[in-house]
């Protein structure tokens, strides 16, 4: 159990204070309160002195190592897994490591939680941070012991010379800090890993289960007031006037501030602010048309009928393939907008004083948010300090710093530190949704083979980006093209866990199931055969690997007993590459009182080296349950710009009883790690749709599936 033995006496809040030098001190007071738990192996004592080795780590005179986790933690476990990579290369025992969360700092690149890229993009940097420090420690040890550095080895925080002499990290830490930083360092070979690839419990686990202050909503600052903000109830509306007489009569409410089309109520508790907000009398007007879901559906259908503009990818001659075909399979799939519904609603604390701002809270993009706040309150970005708290979920919503910008503006006007908390209703109705979308997929069949494939995307506000048009079956079929068209809307949209592919994969993987029936070939075999065509491809746009895709497909078929399901168990197959990771899933459905129920999902993942299998498995299980939940139940519509749901009484999230068992397998290899926070989600909906089709003979073309009441019940 990593760090279970480190007892902390965390203060009752995440307290924020300005240090003498003007910097920010966030009260993670690990360092004054660690004591060993006698029942467990004893960690190193708290040091009297710390020695900075590099931006990522410092070593204490007792040998205790403090590692900084640079990226925002949204539940993807990077606060544990990123330091694990550094600790591995350093050669320290994991129990002698304490972890600190970094704030926004120029010391680190890409301090972003997004795209499942935290581990993949920092793999080399983190290994280098650890290996560099190890070289400096060895160099210091060699000097101390008067031996050759090349004759020393490192393990568990001890540097040992071939003669048997040894010194500890703590003994040489001060000298190590003065060593020349080596330009080139060698990395351990994966076969020698002692931390990477082993199960390590979340470093925050004790604080989480004891309810210690960790999250943005727990931030407190002296003199701070709480804010609740009233926003236009419908998209396309603006504020004409308001009456705050009643709001101001609420005990605890101190001030009401208008900013733009929004009104902030400030109080000495969240309750006072919320209660005051409910009593505001506001008059709104429509600046632009309030949009409704049937209109969105019609505009997306119009795009699908006639794809315009350049193809996002084009191979061969799809038109000709379609003209020459025996049949063209043509299907359209549809999915609604979705709110993110992080369980911790959006919130942020800001304290603006003069031209300086201290901002603390949960944000996936601290760098962008620094700029956003600076612009909103008219100060230089370097005057805005951003500190990160643990996040109660992100799912893409916290890529956007709109709430941080709001609270900075309110603090500037109010002249006191403010914590802004969205109520659930605010959170669900404030926008940045997954865009509603439709996919039309067409495939031509000639002489029992797929000869052409066309994918057309119609989405609200934006289209698929990056390498998505080059995903499977790109490169597997001679004639292939992808088009994207968008319909502009005043309903704000943004990234939602596995943007675009969260529904595209469901559509395509459902389509391949129907295609395999048309071709009278097993769905697994169809995919394996098609993938043969991309193996050896020199197309640089294609980043997925035919071999790795075949690998996960074969293993998923094997582990699930594909094609050999017990009587009454119906299986559905799905395989998808996203975020640099290859995944295959098999869903199993049974009929209970003639209604399909998802009982189990088998999942095989090839994400290269698995840094922390315990947490990795959690991500995969969660992604599948999340994917199934939203495919089954996620519904969100608009009537004249007003969202159809604003809380969990009307918006259904998957619950415990509905979650199927999940069996996860990782492909073992020594390739560099790839994304894991998102890739298990996209294939889940398709696997379930295909299993339900196997069980009932009914195909689903629209999410959420729950609307097929005659089948689902």
């Amino acid at each position, binding site marked *: 159990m990593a760090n279970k033995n480190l007892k902390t006496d965390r203060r009752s809040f995440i307290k924020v204070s300005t240090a003498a030098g003007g910097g920010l001190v966030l009260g993670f007071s690990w360092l004054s309160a660690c004591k060993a738990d006698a029942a467990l192996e004893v960690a190193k004592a708290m040091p009297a002195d710390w020695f900075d080795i590099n931006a990522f780590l410092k070593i204490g005179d007792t040998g205790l190592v403090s590692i900084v986790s640079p990226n925002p933690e949204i539940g993807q476990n990077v606060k544990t897994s990123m330091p694990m990579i550094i600790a591995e290369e350093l050669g320290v025992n994991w129990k002698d490591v304490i972890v600190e969360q970094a704030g926004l700092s120029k010391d680190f690149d890409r301090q972003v939680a997004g795209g499942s890229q935290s581990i993949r993009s920092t793999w080399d940097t983190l290994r280098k941070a650890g290996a560099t420090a190890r070289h400096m420690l060895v160099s210091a040890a060699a000097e101390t012991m008067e031996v050759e550095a090349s004759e020393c080895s490192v393990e568990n925080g001890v540097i040992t010379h071939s003669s048997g002499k040894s010194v500890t990290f703590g003994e040489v830490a001060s000298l190590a800090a003065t060593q020349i930083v080596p330009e080139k360092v060698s990395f351990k070979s994966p076969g020698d890993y002692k931390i990477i690839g082993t199960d390590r419990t979340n470093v925050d686990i004790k604080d989480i*289960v004891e309810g210690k202050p*960790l999250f943005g909503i727990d931030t407190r600052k002296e003199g701070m007031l709480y804010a609740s903000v009233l926003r236009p109830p419908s998209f396309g509306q603006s504020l004409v006037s308001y009456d705050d007489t009643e709001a101001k009569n609420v005990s605890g409410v101190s001030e009401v501030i208008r900013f733009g089309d929004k009104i902030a109520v400030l109080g000495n508790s969240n309750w006072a602010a919320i209660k005051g907000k409910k009593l505001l009398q506001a008059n709104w007007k429509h600046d632009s048309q309030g949009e409704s879901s049937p209109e969105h559906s019609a505009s997306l259908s119009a795009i699908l009928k006639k794809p315009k503009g350049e193809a996002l990818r084009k191979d061969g001659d799809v038109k000709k393939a379609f003209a020459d075909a025996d049949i063209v399979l043509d299907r359209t799939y549809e999915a609604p907008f979705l709110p993110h519904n*992080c*369980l911790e609603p959006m919130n942020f604390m800001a304290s603006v004083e003069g031209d300086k701002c201290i901002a603390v809270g949960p944000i996936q993009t601290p760098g962008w948010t620094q700029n956003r706040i600076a612009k909103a309150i008219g100060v230089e970005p370097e005057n805005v300090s951003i500190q990160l708290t643990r996040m109660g979920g992100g799912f893409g919503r916290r890529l956007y710093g709109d709430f941080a910008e709001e609270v900075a503006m309110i603090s500037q006007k109010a002249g006191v530190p403010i914590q802004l908390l969205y109520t659930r209703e605010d959170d669900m109705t404030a926008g940045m949704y997954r865009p509603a979308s439709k996919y039309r997929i067409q495939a031509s069949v000639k002489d029992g083979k797929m000869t052409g494939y066309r994918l057309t995307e119609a989405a609200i506000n934006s289209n698929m980006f990056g390498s998505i048009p080059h995903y499977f079956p790109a490169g597997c079929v001679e004639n292939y093209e992808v088009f994207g068209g968008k319909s502009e809307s005043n309903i704000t949209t943004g990234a939602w866990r596995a943007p675009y592919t969260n529904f595209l994969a469901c559509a395509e993987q459902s389509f391949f199931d129907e295609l395999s029936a048309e071709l009278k070939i097993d769905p697994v075999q169809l995919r394996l055969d098609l993938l043969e065509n991309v193996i050896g491809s020199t197309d640089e746009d294609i980043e997925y690997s035919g071999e790795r895709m075949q690998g996960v497909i074969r293993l998923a078929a094997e582990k699930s007993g594909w094609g050999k399901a017990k009587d009454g168990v119906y299986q559905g197959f799905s395989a998808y590459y996203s975020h640099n990771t290859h995944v295959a899933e098999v869903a199993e459905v049974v009929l209970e009182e003639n209604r399909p129920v998802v009982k189990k999902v088998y999942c095989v993942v090839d994400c290269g080296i698995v840094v922390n299998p315990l947490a990795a498995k959690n991500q995969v299980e969660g992604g599948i349950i999340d994917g199934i939940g939203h495919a089954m139940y996620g519904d969100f519509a608009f009537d004249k710009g007003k969202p159809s749901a604003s809380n969990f009484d009307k918006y259904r999230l998957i619950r415990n009883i509905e979650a199927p068992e999940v069996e996860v397998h990782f492909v073992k290899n020594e390739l560099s790690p790839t994304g894991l926070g998102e890739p298990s989600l996209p294939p889940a909906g398709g696997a379930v749709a295909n299993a339900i089709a196997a069980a009932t003979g009914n195909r689903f073309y629209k999410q959420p599936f729950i609307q097929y009441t005659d089948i689902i019940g």
Partner: protein
Amino acid sequence: MANYDLNINGKNYSVDVDADMPILWVLRDTLGLVGTKYGCGISQCGACTIHLDGSAIRSCALPVSNVAGKKITTIEGLSKDGDHPVQNAWVEHDVPQCGYCQAGQIMTAAAFLNENKKPSDEEIKKAMNGNICRCGTYLRIRKAVKTASENI
């Protein structure tokens, strides 16, 4: 505003707040016990679960005026050293992802196991069904409740 005497985690507090203020906000904003979380405000998600005289209850819609004289337990007071069997099981199974809903999940599980010492798998699922986990850690929650039931 009125005065209310509250017993929370074995300690007595006196608070001067509005009668309709939900106990959630008294805990978090008046008393600084922030382990209990806000999730929906309408008793739908379970993030705010506390114990009232030993029973699990949603604190987000429960006015302070209704709880005076009753024994309140929050996540901070579930055990002295964070070692209640449910908390231990949560650590053993490394349940959380983001962690935000877990205090509520733990409080629901602890009250449930007080009433049902040896629950079946189906009973566990049903008992935990009122607590939403947006990250989808439901499978580990089930396993942890099972483990806790064996150690209670």
